[in-house]
Structures are given as C-alpha cells and as structure tokens.
C-alpha cells in the first residue's frame, strides 16, 4: 500500500512531537533552570560555555592572544565549509574518503566535547 503524508506519516511525526514535548517537560522538572550570581565586574572570571560550545572552547585554548581566531574562527569555518560542500566533495573524492573525512571531524568535535565535559 502506498503511504500518504496524511494520515499515515503525519501521525508518526505527531507521535514523536508529543514524545519530544514529554521529554522536555521531564527534563525541566528534573533539572530546573538555575540563576547565576550577579555580575562582578572587578574580578575576571573564567567562564565555561554550554556543552554545545565546549569543542570551540577546547580549540581556542591551543591558541593565545592574537592567534585566537585560528581556533575560534578559522578552523570552525573550515569545518563548516567542509560540511556544506559534502555533496561536491563526494563527487570529487568518492563516498569512502568523504565518510573518513566527515568521521574525523565528527570524532574531533565529539572527543573535545567529552574531555571538556569530564574536566570540570
């Protein structure tokens, strides 16, 4: 039987919408949002970003001062450019090499996030 968006597929998607909402509500009550301390302008403070920026935090620390943009802007831009160009990179280099390159970048991102998460 041919599946149609309505009603076959829509009900599946809506099921996951409800499930997503439930997950968010559960997380909200288990881990309610916190409020930090008021700003203290006098003392410099080493902040930690949200988990989804930890890879950037990790990259930036390899460079200091004027070179900071290499870790903070240049390398992320290369990553983004790679991901955007995947359809063309695949045409040029083939599926296998594309998978390897994508996996390497993904592992760098995942690994750096993980070390930063564990290094409290």
């Amino acid at each position, binding site marked *: 039987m*041919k*599946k*149609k*968006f*309505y009603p*076959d*597929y*829509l009900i*599946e*998607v809506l099921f*996951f*919408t409800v499930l*997503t*909402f439930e*997950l*968010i*509500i559960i*997380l*909200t*009550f288990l*881990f*309610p*949002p916190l*409020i*930090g*301390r*008021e*700003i*203290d*302008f006098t003392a*410099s*403070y*080493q*902040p*930690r*970003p*949200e*988990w*989804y*920026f930890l890879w*950037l935090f990790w990259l*930036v620390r390899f460079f200091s*001062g*004027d*070179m*900071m*943009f290499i870790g*903070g*802007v240049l390398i992320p831009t290369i990553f*983004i450019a790679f*991901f*955007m160009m*995947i*359809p*063309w990179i*695949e045409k040029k280099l083939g*599926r296998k090499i594309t998978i390897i390159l*994508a996996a390497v970048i993904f592992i760098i991102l995942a690994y750096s996030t993980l070390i930063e998460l564990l290094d409290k």
Partner: protein
Amino acid sequence: MKIIDWFLDRFRLKNFHRGIFERDIPEGISYFYCLGGIAFSAFLFCFISGLFLSFHYIPSESEAYRSILRIHEEVSLGKVMRGIHKWSANVLIISIVLHSIRVFVTKSYRPPRELNWIVGVMIFILVMFEGFTGYLLPWDQKAYWATVVGTNIAGSIPVIGEAILLIIRGGYDVTGITLMRFYSFHVIWFPLLIIILLWAHFHIIKKLGISKPL
C-alpha cells in the same frame, strides 16, 4: 468545515494543502526519518516558550537580572517556561546533529537535494548563534564573562575583527548596549532568518519529495 473552506478559498490555498497532505511517502523509511520532525518540534517549543518569556524579560543593564529573578519567583509557570526554553534548545541541537547524521548516512544530500543540505547547515549555524546570544540574556556572572570571551574570539580576526567586535558589542566593552543587541539578535534577527530558511528547507522537501531510502 465551511468556514475553513472559505478561508482556504480566500487565500487561494485550495490546492496548497494538497501538495503537503496528499504527498506520497516512499516505502520502507525508518523512524530515523522522524528526527527532522523532532528538531522542528523542538524549534516550535523553543519559539512558543520564548514568546511567553519575552512578556516578562527586560533587556536592560539594571533590570535584566531582576527580571529573570521575577520570572522564577513571581510569574506563574515562569520557571517552567524558562526550563522548557532551555531544554528544548538542548533537544533542538541534539536532534539537528542526529538528523544530519541520518541524512549523511542515507546519502539524501545528493543532487538534486544538495541545496537543501546547505540550507540545513545554515540553520544549524544560526541555531548555534541563538544559543550564544541567549546565554548573555540572564545577565549574570557566567553569562557576562562567557560573552566577553566569546566576542573576543571574533575580535581577534585580523583586519576586520575590530569592526565585527564593534558591531556585535555596540562599543569596545560588553555593556547594556551589547545586551540590547544580543536581545535583538536572539529574538528578531536569528529567528527571522531561521524561519525563512526553514521555509526553504520544507519547500524543497515538498517539491522534491522525501529521498528514497537505500
């Protein structure tokens, strides 16, 4: 039903909904194809809770922190709204990552869908920027210094760095002007761009259909 038909007719949408609802879905697609739908749901929850938070939040140097305290302590369901906003943002980022892995694995980015892949990457970047600008809004210790560090990175770019820094900070330091600017980015600029890109994302899916599984 008559009133719905009337609206559809006046908007000349009689055949529009057909394009969406009566679309064929390829056989054999797995539940991993719902990840995009999950991401969109999380975006909507983020959007709606954000609408409610904007009732009570005041983007000013002296009021921002106190308005967050008020949202937590006085506004009914304020803390819950903030929790939903925070957690749906987290779910959104995770589901976008998983969705793009699904698209990569099933090779759905191949022509003619390469433009949709690019639109998707752009949406992801904008969502990350939403996360960054939203982080400053509570105007607490963590938020302030994270923004100082984060914007310093942009400022370290050779030649154009200083100009970018002045645009995003509204001056040489992170002040109330920066807060106003981040608020504007967070609630107007980026959501507007994301909605335009989401329209493109869905429009391409509507026109080209869901890619056939392997």
